[in-house]
């Protein structure tokens, strides 16, 4: 379902219905005015909500329930468990309708009918209660009430058709309801015998008055069965038949139209428009045989479960009684077109409305002043009348609201002339001026609308119809929030994490089945199953990730204040510009961003942005701009802090780094400018000699880097002298699955993040060269540093070669910097949930964390950056 308003409606209705149930049950224990008021209000709200959509049966039922509750509130009806039952049942029906709305977009036909019926029943209670008030007679049993409105749909269609045929054959079918006394068996009465012997029975049924709760305690000598039958026998005969038990019998004389209720699925089937058109023509000529043939042909094309099929069956049954049955057939034809129940009482009116609709097609003279505007004027006059004798306060305030309303109304017309006239003539302190202005305005309207009336009226009929269509939208504008303990979401995360891992074992098993048992077909099936589970778990994971996504605005929103306060303190003019605050990322990521961001913004304010006089001297605008920018790039969220300050001088950085012993003298001469900039992220680096009040608090850029990398993110800086500095952080959108390459070294499994691997190659002993005492390998003309993984992570075992005497090698690309690592063997890729080390193990920076594999073994994931620089 796409309509968020409808979704909201469903959610809210369920809350309300639950509350109604609670209140109704509480009311049975204690009659409380407050509860009744709340009950009334809730049902009232539900009614109002349902009116937004085209669920007229639901609205009707809720309206009836509301009126019933109102009577309870007014104490014209006293609360009884019977009333409670009716209300509870009504709410059950509404609740079912809500379920159906969720499942099918609208309540089902049968439920609508139940709702209508229940609404009628409530209306009956209400009207009867009114009579009772005057006649002072009390007590009504539920049987008496339900009997007045009979549920014709309990009679199967084929029998209803028979009954209707009987009508046309001049008979008057009667519904007999027989409710035997509970003690009837002791009186020698045989209910079943009575029913079987009803003359001229077309249809009959029996049902239980109450549910049998417990078969063990059920008293079989108590009769709780009711009987119903439809017969064409006349009433006298029936009275004779039941003469000894007439008090237990009720006769209902139904109307023919009550039985003609087409029923079925409203969707699907062929197109009937041509059929309906042809059929109408044939109907005029009363050529019965042709009608029958065309009907039969269409019936064969139509699935019998369809609503239309039911209409066709009814038409077929009625065809023999043309012309008497013609209006009924026409109503049914209309039902085929509209898929609505036939409207027998409106047969004559339909033709009229068709004429009206054609009229709409004509061009309509557009009014210069819309009717709504006149209504607003008229209503303001009414308000004026109402409040003119009120207290001074409310009078004056309302008058100013009226003047504001009128002025705005004129503004909405964009009529300068009228607006000036209004301002000239209308005086707030003089009521008369307002009244006469309104009157004059309305007078003009009368003339215009009289002319246009005939043309516009059919139009309003049509627009009303159109507007009933549910207001559709793609994006939700308000969200109902569900407050959930973060722990619960975390638990879900962990579980889905386990699922993601567990599903891998299926793949592992399928390989095993093929390899060890040689059953390729089973292996294939397992793989298919795996892909199904894989898809589901990916969707699930996505959904859970979505739950944790929050907009970066939650972090960004504190910065305007921070920048304002700090720039003031520093005597700098700074404007903060925020972009992409709607960008969403995982709550953890967002939270992790806060501290680095504060640090970066402080840095920009403190070191980046110059004092106003310095900026003016440089010919830059006096006010500096700091931009906070968020955007999504693939599965990463990019956060940038950009300033237009003095920029970073790479030379200074290099020298500083050398002085601090962070780089060698050799590197000092070799290092490129853009590389030099990134030296600021090294631990123990700080360019400003004196610690400033703002950023010199012992946290350097290395802290930013550590924080970002902890979340598997990256940070980089670019800068241009006097143009400014941009620090870019890229973080994963969520703590989702990592894709890794599994490798083996010294008999253990390890993994490299897949996104740093540029390729895997096999190299021979002779491909390895020694250059300046370091191992290198030449790969397609490119010389790459080469390492043995076993050396790097201190595994005391020689690297293994494959049968062709080759080393398995992983080529790592760290943002352009490439090197090759020799491993024992490559095992393929896998999806894992990476869990960072906690406690003292977290100092093992060469591993970014662990994961559990499908076969239950533990995997260490290598952090390639640390692999090289760390050792």
């Amino acid at each position, binding site marked *: 379902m796409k309509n*968020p*308003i409808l979704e*909201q*409606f469903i*959610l*809210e*209705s369920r809350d309300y219905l639950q509350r109604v149930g609670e209140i109704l049950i509480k009311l049975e224990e204690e009659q409380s005015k407050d509860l009744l008021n*709340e009950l009334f*209000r809730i049902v*009232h*709200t539900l*009614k*109002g*909500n349902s*009116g*937004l959509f085209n669920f007229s049966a639901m609205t009707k039922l809720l309206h009836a329930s509301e009126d019933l509750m109102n009577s309870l509130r007014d104490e014209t009806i006293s609360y009884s468990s019977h009333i409670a039952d009716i209300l509870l049942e009504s709410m059950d029906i509404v609740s079912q309708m809500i379920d159906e709305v969720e499942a099918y977009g609208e309540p089902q036909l049968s439920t609508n009918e139940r709702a209508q019926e229940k609404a009628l029943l409530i209306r009956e209670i209400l009207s009867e209660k009114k009579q009772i008030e005057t006649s002072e007679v009390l007590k009504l049993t539920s049987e008496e009430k339900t009997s007045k409105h009979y549920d014709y749909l309990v009679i199967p269609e084929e029998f209803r058709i028979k009954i209707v045929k009987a009508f046309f054959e001049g008979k008057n079918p009667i519904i007999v309801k027989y409710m035997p006394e509970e003690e009837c068996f002791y009186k020698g009465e045989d209910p079943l015998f009575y029913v079987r012997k009803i003359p001229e029975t077309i249809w009959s049924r029996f049902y239980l008055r109450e549910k049998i709760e417990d078969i063990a305690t059920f008293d079989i000598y108590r009769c709780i069965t009711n009987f119903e039958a439809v017969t064409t026998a006349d009433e006298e005969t029936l009275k004779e038949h039941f003469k000894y038990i007439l008090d237990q019998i009720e006769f209902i004389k139904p109307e023919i139209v009550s039985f003609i209720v087409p029923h079925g699925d409203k969707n699907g089937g062929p197109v009937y428009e041509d059929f309906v058109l042809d059929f109408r023509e044939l109907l005029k000529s009363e050529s019965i045989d042709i009608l029958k043939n065309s009907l039969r042909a269409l019936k064969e094309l139509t699935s019998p479960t369809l609503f239309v099929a039911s209409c066709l069956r009814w038409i077929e049954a009625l065809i023999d009684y043309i012309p008497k049955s013609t209006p009924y057939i026409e109503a049914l034809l209309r039902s085929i077109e509209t898929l609505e129940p036939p409207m027998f009482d409106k047969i004559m009116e339909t033709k009229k409305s068709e004429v009206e609709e054609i009229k709409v097609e004509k061009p309509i003279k557009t009014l210069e002043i*819309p009717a*709504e*505007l006149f209504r*607003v004027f008229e*209503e*303001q006059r*009414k*308000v004026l009348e*109402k*409040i003119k004798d*009120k*207290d001074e*306060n*409310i009078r004056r*305030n*309302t008058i*100013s*609201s*009226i003047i*504001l*309303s009128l*002025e*705005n*109304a*004129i*503004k*909405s*017309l*964009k009529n300068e002339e009228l607006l000036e006239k209004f301002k000239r003539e209308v005086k707030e302190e003089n009521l008369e001026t307002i009244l006469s202005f309104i009157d004059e305005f309305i007078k003009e309207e009368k003339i215009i609308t009289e002319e246009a009336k005939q043309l516009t009226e059919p139009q309003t009929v049509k*627009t*009303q119809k159109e*507007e009933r269509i549910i*207001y559709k*939208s793609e994006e*939700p*504008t*308000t969200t*109902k929030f569900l407050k959930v303990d973060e722990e619960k979401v975390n638990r879900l995360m962990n579980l889905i994490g386990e699922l993601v891992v567990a599903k891998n074992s299926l793949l592992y098993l399928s390989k095993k089945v093929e390899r060890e048992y040689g059953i390729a077909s089973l292996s294939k099936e397992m793989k298919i199953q795996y892909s199904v589970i894989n898809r589901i778990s990916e969707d699930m994971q996505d959904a859970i990730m979505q739950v944790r996504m929050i907009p970066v605005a939650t972090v960004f929103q504190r910065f305007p204040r921070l920048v304002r306060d700090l720039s003031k303190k520093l005597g700098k003019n700074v404007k903060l510009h925020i972009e992409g605050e709607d960008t969403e990322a995982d709550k953890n990521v967002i939270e992790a961003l806060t501290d680095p961001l504060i640090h970066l913004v402080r840095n920009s304010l403190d070191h980046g942005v110059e004092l106003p006089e310095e900026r003016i001297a440089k010919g830059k605008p006096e006010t500096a701009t700091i931009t906070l920018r968020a955007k999504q790039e693939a599965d990463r969220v990019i956060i940038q802090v950009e300033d237009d300050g003095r920029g970073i001088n790479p030379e200074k950085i290099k020298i500083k780094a050398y002085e601090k012993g962070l780089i060698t003298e050799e590197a000092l001469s070799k290092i490129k400018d853009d590389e030099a900039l990134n030296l600021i992220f090294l631990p123990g680096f700080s360019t400003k000699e004196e610690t400033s009040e703002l950023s010199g608090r012992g946290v350097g850029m290395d802290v930013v880097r550590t924080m970002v990398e902890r979340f598997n993110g990256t940070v980089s800086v670019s800068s241009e002298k006097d143009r400014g500095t941009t620090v870019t952080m890229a973080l994963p959108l969520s703590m989702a699955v990592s894709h890794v390459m599994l490798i083996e070294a010294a008999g253990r499994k390890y993994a490299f993040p897949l996104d740093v691997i540029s390729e895997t190659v096999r190299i021979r002993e002779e491909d390895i060269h020694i250059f300046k005492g370091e191992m290198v390998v030449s790969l397609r003309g490119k010389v790459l540093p080469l390492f043995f993984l076993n050396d790097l992570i201190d595994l005391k075992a020689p690297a293994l070669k494959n049968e062709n005497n080759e080393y398995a090698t992983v080529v790592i690309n760290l943002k352009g910097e490439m090197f090759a690592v020799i491993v024992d063997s490559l095992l393929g890729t896998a999806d894992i949930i990476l869990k960072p080390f906690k406690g003292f193990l977290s100092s093992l920076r060469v591993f970014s964390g662990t994961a559990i594999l499908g076969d239950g073994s533990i995997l260490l994931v290598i952090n390639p950056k640390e692999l090289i620089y760390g050792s």
Partner: protein
Amino acid sequence: MKKVLVVDDAATVRMYHRKILNDAGFQVDEALNGLEALEKAFKDEYDLYIVDINMPKLDGYSFVDKLRNMESIKQSPVIVVSTESEEKDKEKAYEVGANFYIVKPVKPDELVKYAKIFTGVPL
């Protein structure tokens, strides 16, 4: 942009009104009942109030009554949107100083038209 305060205890109605008004270029704020609406009206200036009648804590009539007694609040137009279609309900709303009365459910283009008229946005 014109600012509208939608006061209704039903989230569905609030959402419905918000969607319609947002699409028509209005800025929309919401209040769950009269009391909350009053609090918001104190803090913020609204160009129009669209108010339900039946609400907990403080109903629509009382809200309008209180609003029209407040000297410090901008006396913007109030449209009452109610399920009650009887004339006496409308009169009751006008007596406390509401400017307009619409019977629920409100049709989208109707709501937009009246919102525009009452806030002076060109039709």
